[in-house]
Every structure is written in structure tokens, then in C-alpha cells.
């Protein structure tokens, strides 16, 4: 018995080995290297050990605080709206009586096949000063003067959030749809007999049953939002200079690594701050979700 287990163990490693090597070289090693860098101040190839100096510098770095604030605004405003919409859309799509189901599903999912760059550029054109949105709003007399969407601190954020909603809602909807198909129809039948309305069924059956999916999509969206880069880079950055109000942490890391006079050490320490924030948020989200998630 033991012998045969060892035999299969050998095969198991053969299956895993390539992905494991790639994981170690391109994930574990850079992660450790990055941590090492974060304790150093770098100018070109000159490295000096600063310990936690970079992290101290971060606390008084206005640009960093601003980037952190921007990222959190996107997180707090966009993710709840997106997930609520995704869940509602999935619930409608899961209805047995619905006709043209696959049309609706395809249409709503379609935005997420576009590249983040393409969709950002598309929305940039739509919301440009003399673009479609201003023409339309002036046409129906909603506004008199064109709005400078992409360089106005408030509206630029709104446009980024709209772009994110358009691009990602359908993607999350698919996960909810998958979760909904695993809920036993007998739960709804029983509720129907007890006279529960559709709304009550949604809140007392659908939402609790979808808890693992809600947790999964929340964690994934949090990670995604904290890594936000392509959209602000292509929507609100002109000649490599981002708008202060929409600059995200990833953009700030990029600027510190490749645009400003490069300081890899400082950039690495910012990225470790992001890792810490993501880990913290994930722990909080798992705690809030309780013990229901055991996968």
C-alpha cells in the first residue's frame, strides 16, 4: 500500500513540476526580491539599506496618500454598485419564465471581452469635451455648457467608475449565475407555498445562498480595484501625467519605477503596502462572511 502511494506521489510531482518551477521563479523569487528592495533606497544601481525608512516616507508622502484615497474611493463606490447590479441581473436571467435568455446573457457579458485599454479609450472619446455625451446632454437641454469630464476632479472619477461598471458587471454576473444554478428549486417552491413575495425570496433565499459567491466576487474585485491601472492610465492621463484625483496606487508605483527618477526601493515598499492592505481586507471580508465559506 505504502509502495503504491509512493509511486503515485512521484507522478503527482511530475504533473506539478513545471507550474511549480514557474511559480517559484516568476512569483516567489520576485516577491522576496521585492521585499528586500523595499528595505532599501535605490538610485540607479546604488542601493542603501534604510530599513523601514521607505515606509516612514510613505506616511508623509502626499501623492501616496492621495493615490491611496483615490483607490479607496473607487473601491467603496464602484464595487458595491457593481456586485448588486450583477446579482440582480443574474437573478433575472435565472428566472424560468424568461425568454431570449441567451441574448440577454451574451449582451451583458460582451463588454468584458474588450481590452481595458480599448474600453477606456472608447469611453475617453465618449466623454471628451466635444464628445458624444456632451453633445447629447446639450441636445436634450440637460446642460448648457459642455462638462470637462476628464479633467474635472469629480467627473473624472465618475467616468472611471462608469467605465469600470460597464466593463466588469457582466463578468461578475456569470459567477452569480453559476451560483444561482446550484440553489435547489425546492427552496423557492416552499417559499412560494408560504406566500413569500419575489422580493422576500430574493433577500431570504437568494442572498444567503449566494454568500460564498458574494465573498469570492468581493475578494476578487477588491484585489482588482487595488491594482487599477489601465483605466486611469488611458482615460485621465495626458502625456504621462495622471490627474491627481484619479491617480491610483499602481499608477504611482509605475511612475516611481519607470517615469520619475527611478526609485525601485520606494516603489517596492509601496507595492508591499498594497499587499498588506489586500491581505487585511481579505481577512476582514472572510470574517464578515463567517464560516460559510469552506472552499
Amino acid at each position, binding site marked *: 500500500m505504502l509502495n503504491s502511494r509512493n509511486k503515485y506521489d512521484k507522478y503527482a510531482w511530475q504533473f506539478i513540476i513545471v507550474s511549480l518551477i514557474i511559480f517559484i521563479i516568476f512569483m516567489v523569487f520576485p516577491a522576496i526580491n521585492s521585499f528586500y528592495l523595499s528595505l532599501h533606497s535605490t538610485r540607479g544601481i546604488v542601493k542603501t539599506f534604510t530599513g523601514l525608512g521607505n515606509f516612514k516616507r510613505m506616511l508623509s508622502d502626499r501623492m501616496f496618500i492621495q493615490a491611496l484615497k483615490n483607490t479607496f474611493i473607487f473601491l467603496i463606490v464602484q464595487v458595491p454598485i457593481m456586485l448588486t447590479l450583477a446579482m440582480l441581473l443574474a437573478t433575472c436571467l435565472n428566472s424560468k419564465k424568461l425568454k431570449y435568455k441567451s441574448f440577454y446573457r451574451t449582451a451583458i457579458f460582451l463588454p468584458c471581452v474588450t481590452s481595458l485599454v480599448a474600453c477606456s*479609450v472608447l469611453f475617453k*472619446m465618449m466623454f471628451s469635451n466635444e464628445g458624444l455625451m456632451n453633445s447629447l446632454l446639450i441636445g436634450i437641454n440637460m446642460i448648457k455648457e459642455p462638462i470637462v469630464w476628464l479633467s474635472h476632479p469629480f467627473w473624472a472619477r465618475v467616468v472611471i467608475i462608469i467605465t469600470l461598471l460597464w466593463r466588469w458587471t457582466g463578468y461578475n454576473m456569470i459567477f452569480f449565475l453559476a451560483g444561482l444554478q446550484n440553489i435547489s428549486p425546492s427552496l423557492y417552491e416552499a417559499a412560494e407555498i408560504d406566500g413569500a413575495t419575489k422580493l422576500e425570496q430574493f433577500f431570504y433565499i437568494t442572498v444567503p445562498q449566494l454568500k460564498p459567491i458574494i465573498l469570492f466576487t468581493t475578494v476578487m474585485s477588491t484585489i482588482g480595484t487595488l491594482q487599477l491601472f489601465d483605466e486611469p492610465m488611458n482615460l485621465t492621463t495626458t502625456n504621462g501625467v495622471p490627474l491627481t484625483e484619479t491617480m491610483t496606487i499602481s499608477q504611482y508605483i509605475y511612475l516611481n519605477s519607470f517615469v520619475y527618477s527611478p526609485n525601485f526601493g520606494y516603489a517596492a515598499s509601496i507595492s508591499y503596502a498594497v499587499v498588506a492592505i489586500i491581505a487585511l481586507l481579505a481577512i476582514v471580508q472572510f470574517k464578515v462572511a463567517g464560516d460559510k465559506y469552506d472552499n
Partner: protein
Amino acid sequence: MITRKSQNLINSILMYGFLSIGAILSLFPFIWMLISSTNRAVDITAGRLLPGLEFFNNLKNLLNDTNIIRAFFNTTKITLIATIFTLLISSLGAYGFEKYSSKNREIIYKFFLLSMMVPFAALMIPLFTMIVKMGLIDNYWGIILPLLAPAFIVFFFRQNFKSIPSEIIEAARIDGAGEFTIFFRIVFPAMKSSFSAAAIIVFMTHWNNFLWPLIVLQSDKTKTLTLVISSLSSAYFIDYGVLMLGIIIATLPVIIIFLTMQKQFVEGMLGSSK
């Protein structure tokens, strides 16, 4: 009784209304993009929503201003190579984790899952210096190699492989089939929809990738579609008609692939939640 009936009516009106608004908002930018590629820049910004006659003019300008054809082939090459190798490597890995349980490997798997939390920006700098040392700047392998075993895809395959009954594997072993034969002859054909779903996800990741190619690909010769579009859109003078056409070229292949593989994709995605 009447209230029940009217309640149902209201419910379906709300349902169809909500879904229709969702569908219209989702599709509108695509339609606008198609229409605008046939219009002059002036008309696009003025909000013209009718097709025009400028398509070939825009195409001519796009071909003159950029090397979009080369970018298209660059992107295709990177995406195809990356998709094939990523599917192979990740599915084998996931199978190894799922079908042969051991404590050590579970610990390794936990690290894979944890790595999903590490933002790419945190790895970017060491990866960049590594790629420079390997001499892979401006090389497609510089883009592909670091992304060959993405944790999410390994996780996705493992979740899907849970549905393969151990009895089938045992039966094949008794018949004398080797472990890799079992994987390629039994598991792979049985899990076609999972492979399709994963293929679409990986294909889209690479086709649409921006940040990493932006860093690694530095000469015009190797640029991908996203890089070309991004630089077109940040130029001092932007021709909207040309840009629209560029976006269509970058988007259409993914739409076609998604629409043709949609059935398998949805099946595969639904399977992953079990």
C-alpha cells in the same frame, strides 16, 4: 387572485425592463464604435449616430499612421503561444494537486492561492530586472514566461477536476493506462468545456494585456495592439475615426472567439462553482 396576477405582471415588466436597459447600455458602445468607424472625426464628436462613408478613408489613415498589421500579428503570436502553454502547464498542475492528495502539496497549493493577493505591481520591478538579465526585453518570451502558471487558472482547473469520479481513473489504471495517458485520453476529452472556458480567459488576458507589454516591449517592431491603441489615443492630435477602427481591430477577434465558444464557456464557468 387578481393581485397575484398583477403582481406577476409587474414582476415580469420590471425583469424585462431591467434586463433590456442592461443589454442596451452594454451594447451601445459597440454599436457606436461600429458606426463611428465609418464617420469623420468631426461627425463623431458632434454625436452623429448614423453610418457614413469614411470607412476606407479611416482605414487608409490607420494603415499610414500606425503599423497596426504588424501589431495584430505580434498580438496573435503572443496570445496563441501563451494560451496553449498556459492551458497545458496549469491543467497538469491542477490535476496533480487535485487527484493525488498529500499534505505537502496542499501547503504549496495554499501558496498558489495566496499569490492571487499579490498585485502585479509588487512583482513588476524584480520581474523587469530579471527579464533584462535574461536578455528577454523586446522578446515575446519575456511577456509569456512569467504568466505561464497563473494561480487563478490553476484554481479554476482544480475546481473543475473535482467532478471527475475517481472510479474512472481507477478503472483506467487497472486496464494498465499510465498516469499521463489517463490525463490526455480520459480527463482532457471529458473536460472540454472547462478547457474552453480557461482558454477564453487566458486568451483574453494576453490579447488585452497592457502594463507588462508596456514595460517589456520597447521597440515599435514588437508592439502589441493595446500599446498601439494607447499611444494613438494619447497623441497630441487624435483622429477619432482612425482610433475607432483601431479599437474594432483589437476587439473583433475576441468577440468572434467568444461568440463561437460561448456555449462551452458558459458550461465551463458554471462547472467551476460546484
